[in-house]
């Protein structure tokens, strides 16, 4: 099932155009959707289009990993939105936009600038010749010459995990963050909830 540019050019071209147009359209829909769950999944669709193009470019591993990662991430985003607004589940229309004009100008400007670089820029023409070893090469590179990059990314991810848990947890760095498997009790009605508030009284 290796579909690539060298197999059937017409087929690959048609597929590419479908994926490219689909990806951009889905990307546009992300910010026009009136519900965040829809927005999250339009973004996933946009990523899926990109992933398809990566597959066409023989970056198979990257394309599949992109899809795999985004499936999880976008579902978490969607779940977040449901969590913050069960009205119910963000199915009611919303206005999520502000400073519209500035944003459009900036977006169009970025597009024009980058597209100009793409069209008029000079890039060396040294295309990929042998697509059979792409994934293996990437593996060797990751655990060979670029081990440092790989390791740095790994450590950064670990730091992120720790940092985000510390940030998101109920009590911050110095206190119990609802530890253990016992579910925390319900917090009684309080006007403001700050770290440390209302926890003590319910434990007594």
């Amino acid at each position, binding site marked *: 099932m290796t579909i690539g540019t060298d197999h059937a050019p017409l087929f*690959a071209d048609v597929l590419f155009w479908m994926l*490219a147009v689909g*990806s*951009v359209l889905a*990307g546009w829909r*992300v*910010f026009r959707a009136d519900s*965040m769950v829809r*927005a*999250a999944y339009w*973004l996933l669709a*946009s990523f899926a289009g*990109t992933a398809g*193009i*990566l597959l066409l*470019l023989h*970056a198979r*591993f*990257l394309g599949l990993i*992109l899809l795999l*990662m985004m499936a999880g*991430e976008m579902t*978490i*985003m969607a779940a*977040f*939105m449901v969590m913050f607004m069960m009205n119910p589940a963000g199915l009611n229309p919303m206005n*999520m*936009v*502000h400073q519209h004009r*500035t*944003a*459009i100008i*900036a*977006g169009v400007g970025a597009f*024009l*600038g*980058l*597209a100009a670089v*793409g069209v008029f820029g000079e*890039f060396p023409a*040294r*295309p*990929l*010749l042998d697509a059979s070893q*792409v994934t293996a090469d*990437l593996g060797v*590179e*990751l655990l060979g010459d670029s081990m440092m*990059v*790989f390791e740095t*990314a790994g450590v*950064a*991810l670990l730091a*992120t*995990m720790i*940092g985000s*848990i510390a*940030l*998101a947890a109920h009590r911050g760095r110095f206190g119990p963050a609802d530890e253990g498997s016992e579910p925390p009790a319900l917090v009684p009605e309080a006007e403001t909830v700050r*770290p440390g508030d209302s926890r003590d009284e319910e434990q007594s």
Partner: protein
Amino acid sequence: MSLEILLVVAAALFGIGVYGALSQQSFVMIMMGLEMMLNGAILAGVSLWYFSAAGSPKGQLLAIVAMAVMAVEAAIGFALVINIYRVRKADITEKVKALRG
């Protein structure tokens, strides 16, 4: 399918991302804008790898790093959203501005 077209598509994705990041009120939607920009960046990187790097694996490495950045951004973003929400009860930017004073 040529390098120019691929780069234009990537630029379009990036531009949409810029628009989204600037126009949205909700933190999570702003994060989606950032991800959209990274989406364009990944596409551009892989296109360049395919057409002008002779398949050197370092080009793919760039895309992997971009994905790691995306994961970090999402995780930290969600954590910040929860934290701000916890402290200020706001999940959109304008509420935070209003509470600044």
